[in-house]
């Protein structure tokens, strides 16, 4: 302790105190203030940027979920439309089938009726022709039969016989 007091130099103490206080104020003005301000400014700008990035990411995420929702809705809509179209198609095809069936049945019925009438016609014609033919044959037979006198007599006799009134 005694050595410390002996070593103590007031002059050096005085200069150190004076110079150091001057140094603190000089550095405060020319170094620490601008440096710390710059560091603070940068740090706050980094913080701001990070926050902005976080916000942007959140927005993007929301946007993505929105997109997903829209996409899902669109998909459901598409499915619905396709299903409707399918149903309609099936119905149309079914209707068409039925109509075609009915039409063809009508056609067949018509054809049958026509065939029937044609057949009746043909049968009637054949009947007429058969009657004419048989009349002609009977005429030719009669002519041949009744060529001679006796045969005519015979016939008259027969007829008279039959007509026994």
């Amino acid at each position, binding site marked *: 302790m005694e050595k410390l007091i*002996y070593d103590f*130099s007031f*002059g050096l103490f005085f200069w150190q105190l004076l*110079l150091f206080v001057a140094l603190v104020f000089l550095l405060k003005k020319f170094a620490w203030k601008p440096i*710390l301000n710059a560091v603070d400014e940068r740090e706050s700008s980094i913080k701001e940027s990070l926050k902005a990035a976080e916000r942007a990411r959140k927005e993007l995420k929301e946007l993505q979920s929105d997109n997903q929702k829209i996409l899902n809705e669109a998909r459901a809509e598409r499915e619905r439309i396709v299903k409707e179209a399918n149903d309609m198609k099936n119905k149309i095809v079914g209707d068409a089938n039925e109509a075609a069936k009915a039409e063809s049945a009508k056609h067949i019925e018509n054809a049958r009726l026509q065939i029937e009438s044609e057949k009746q016609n043909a049968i009637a014609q054949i009947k007429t022709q058969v009657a004419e033919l048989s009349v002609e044959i009977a005429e030719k037979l009669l002519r041949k039969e009744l060529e001679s006198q006796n045969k005519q007599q015979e016939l008259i006799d027969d007829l008279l016989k039959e007509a026994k009134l």
Partner: protein
Amino acid sequence: MQFKTSKLFLFLFVFVAPFFASAQHDADTAHAEAEPSIKEKIKKDIEHHLQDSHDFHLFTDNATGTHYGFPLPVILWDDGLHVFMSSKFHHGEDVVESKGNYYKVYHSKVYKTDESGVLTFDEHHHPTNAMPLDFSITKNVFSIMAIMLIIILIFSRTAKSYKTSLVPSGMAKFVEPIIVFVRDEIAIPNIGEKDYKRFMSFLLTIFFFIWIVNLFGLTPLGINVTNSISVTFALALITFLITQFTARKDYWKHIFWMPGVPVFMKIVLAPIELLGVFIKPFALLIRLYANITAGHVVLMSIIGMMFVFKSWIGSPLSFGLAFGLSLLELLVAALQAYIFTMLSALYFGSAVAEHHDEH
């Protein structure tokens, strides 16, 4: 262009001067055999190194007895201002006359003597002569000024680099992490987010000042600023004053009327707490002084060993040890700056703390 010259000066100052300074050891070796007690001589050299001096002494050529270095102004206050160059003392050999008073330098202190320069000693071998108030630009004051100039140069340039862009460039790349470290690891945890800004200028200045001064102490220039008690006393005094003048009501309340303890304890604690107010900065100044002084003494002793053990094993051993210790001292230089700053911040923190909870 002006900057370039200052850069050149710095280069010369830092890199070339040590070679001149290291010549001192060569001079010692040359005279090792001529001097009978080399140990005494080494002891004297170390003592001389630990003391301040009135001229910037780099080395001495023992063969011719010439001292290399440069004189510094001596400023004395003794019923009037006395200013002269230290070269007039002729390294303590001559008595200097100034305005009718006679002065002699003994162990780096200026004493008032008569015309023939007679000094009377007490039983501790301390001169009993009257001492004028000595405001000389001594070696330490000169070193402090030079180092402060370098510090201002470094940090004003750093500050300027932020004007163009917020991204650190050049010097700022190296300095900024340290500044941020002081802010985030020392100031904010100890003082608190609310109050730390007021103390930043002091904390940063004291951190870089002690660190850089300690680093210069490791160069062979022989600068030893932080191992003079006057310097550490001045620094600790500033910490002490800032602590007392920024203190809030709670700080004083915790000293004189400790809340939460019985009245009897309050009375007992008050003087202890009050003593603590002074002991804290005192420990601060002794710690820095003792650490740096011890480092210098051990380092110089190890280098001195080279001249004591004049065998093939002595020099490599001494070199190896000195090299290892120098690395350690590099760490100590930063560590002491950190501790001083840290404890200062802690004291400021306790001064501005607002206790909401009574303990």
